[in-house]
């Protein structure tokens, strides 16, 4: 019943949904369903609850330091989606818990793993990324990882400041695309403190097996972390020296 487009061979050139054919002026049924399946996966990624226990258990298996678990001031997903300001602040109990940590030495790097807009991305790609990254940070003092529920990028500013870290790395789920519900973002901020601007960060985006692989991302991140600590900055100044297009500073509104 549907009319195929005679240029289907071109579909191998792009992931875009081309040469779909038509049923009347609309899409063939298979194309409608395929789109809606992708949307369903992306929607579920946004609303899925971060499996903190599972992350902690897997982290222990990797032999890492005991993680600290925090929550932002966004009490639930509904609030989180409408109030980005609350997702950038620790709730009272979390702030007190972090303050009570007495780290023997000020860490070079604090790591925050947050759900962001896709818990799916965190479940699938956060630990593989850290597994590849941490050996590359040999010689640096790394704080115990902080796992944050309902967290945005700027939550790392407060976490990093409270822990007295020289630099904070925030790993979180990006706004899921229809073809990338599992995409992770990594943000670096030197001298974290509340009120840092997005232009003062560097970002790696699209970290997932079908995009920038965790292994490739870890190499870029390790380079950036060492460069940021050596030059004592992140943001536009760091980009100018790198020549790697993926290492773009964050100029757009935070996702």
């Amino acid at each position, binding site marked *: 019943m549907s009319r195929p487009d005679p*240029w289907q061979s071109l579909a191998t*050139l*792009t992931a875009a949904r081309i040469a*779909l054919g*038509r049923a009347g002026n609309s899409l063939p049924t298979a194309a409608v369903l395929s789109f809606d399946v992708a949307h369903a996966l992306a929607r579920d990624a946004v609303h899925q609850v971060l499996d903190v226990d599972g992350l902690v258990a897997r982290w222990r298996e990797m032999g890492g330091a005991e993680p600290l678990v925090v929550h932002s001031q966004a009490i639930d997903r509904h609030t989180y989606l409408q109030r980005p300001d609350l997702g950038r602040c620790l709730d009272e109990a979390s702030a007190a818990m972090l303050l009570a940590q007495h780290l023997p030495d000020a860490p070079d790097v604090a790591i925050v793993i947050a759900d962001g807009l896709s818990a799916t991305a965190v479940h699938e790609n956060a630990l593989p990324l850290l597994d590849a990254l941490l050996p590359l940070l040999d010689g640096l003092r790394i704080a115990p990882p902080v796992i944050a529920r309902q967290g945005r990028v700027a939550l790392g500013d407060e976490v990093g400041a409270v822990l007295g870290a020289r630099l904070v790395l925030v790993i979180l789920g990006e706004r899921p695309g229809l*073809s990338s519900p599992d995409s992770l973002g990594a943000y670096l901020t030197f001298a974290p403190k509340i009120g840092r601007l997005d232009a003062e960060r560097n970002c790696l985006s699209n970290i997932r097996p079908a995009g920038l692989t965790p292994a490739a991302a870890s190499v870029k991140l390790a380079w950036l972390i060492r460069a940021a600590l050596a030059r004592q900055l992140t943001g536009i100044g760091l980009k100018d020296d790198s020549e790697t297009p993926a290492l773009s500073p964050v100029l757009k509104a935070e996702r």
Partner: protein
Amino acid sequence: MSYRASVGSQGYRFADLREVLARASPARSGDALAGIAAQSAAERMAARLVLADLPLRRFLDAALIPYEIDEVTRLIVDSHDAAAFAPVAALTVGEFREWLLDEATGEAKLAALAPGITPEMAAAVSKLMRNQDLIAVARKCRVVTAFRDTIGLPGRLAVRLQPNHPTDDASGIAASMLDGLMYGVGDAVIGINPASDSLPALASLWRMLDELIGRFAIPTQSCVLTHVSSQIRAIEAGLPVDLVFQSIAGTEAANAGFGINLALLREAREAALSLKRGTVGDNVMYFETGQGSALSANAHHGVDQQTCEARAYAVARHFKPLLVNTVVGFIGPEYLYDGKQIIRAGLEDHFCGKLLGLPMGCDICYTNHAEADQDDIDNLLVLLGTAGVNFIMGVPGGDDIMLNYQSTSFHDQLFVRQALGLQRAPEFAAWLASMGLIDGAGHLLPASPDHRLLADLRRRLS
């Protein structure tokens, strides 16, 4: 002065005009995020009662953002046409709504009125209008612009072909462009959002578009949607730039966040005009806007997001654009939470833009973290088609794999043309007919496997 009204047994007081407008605005998450939304349904109605009785003139006397600190306010005040305003100068906002809806108010009157209307007046009256009012008045407005084809004529709808690719891959972009042209899409513009911002990479996109348009004599225009300063550099470097694109907002501070000001836009327009690449007109600018942009830059001055958006149209109006596109659902649920808010905002933006004399189009879209889906796109598409929107987006399958959001598709435009009887821009329709892609009634013809466009692309790829 303060503003007061009662609803039920409760009295409400509003400190100033900004507060009246913000509280009167239909509910949306961005105004709540800014802390300026009405706290209750009754308070919202109290603000609307106040607004309905306000003289329109009040908006000329009281600037929402001071003249001294904001060049957008200065542009609005300095360019106001008192003679054009005269027919409605004695009206209140509530009476203005009725004047707009009156059968005696037609296309000519509305066109003559446009230079006399400020963005704040347009925003104010929109807050007293239901969706059907926004549609009824907008469809009486006619704004026609031209470059290589003519956009905005009665009974016509243009579509931007948006063949984005996450790595700007030339063959991937070419495949999406071919797909779009075969579906009869591309009369508004063929516009690429590049992933790269390096000039050599951008240059190859401009050349690719120019060669395609030239090779087949397609009556349309190209655009590479990068920062305006890069486009000025491209023009200086001799690249074939048709339209100059820029995102704009309604306050000087928000525009600074985009790295632009009015002087830079003026420079860009003059540079594009100097190339004289238009054949049937010289509207060389393409602007994009969207509610929430001022707040996201923390540059809203306590003004609600819909009024800030209307102020962006004053910026656009000054530069005689070919296309103004409100990207209504892209910004996310912290500004427009769900399908209802996105649909309302799309109708408001289209109405305000048309009333101010702009060639309004709409990127009818949503992100995956908004409470919206394809049904919301369909609804707004039919509503804006009915309202006479100048153009919409055409994204293959509705899935933009570069910007990670969903917009209207090549199929969607076929649907709305059929449902509402909307034709393409006349020059582009004639070209499609000459290429054997549509029949005399504008219906898509079955594509032949050895069509010229297809054969040409296959040859280039091999």
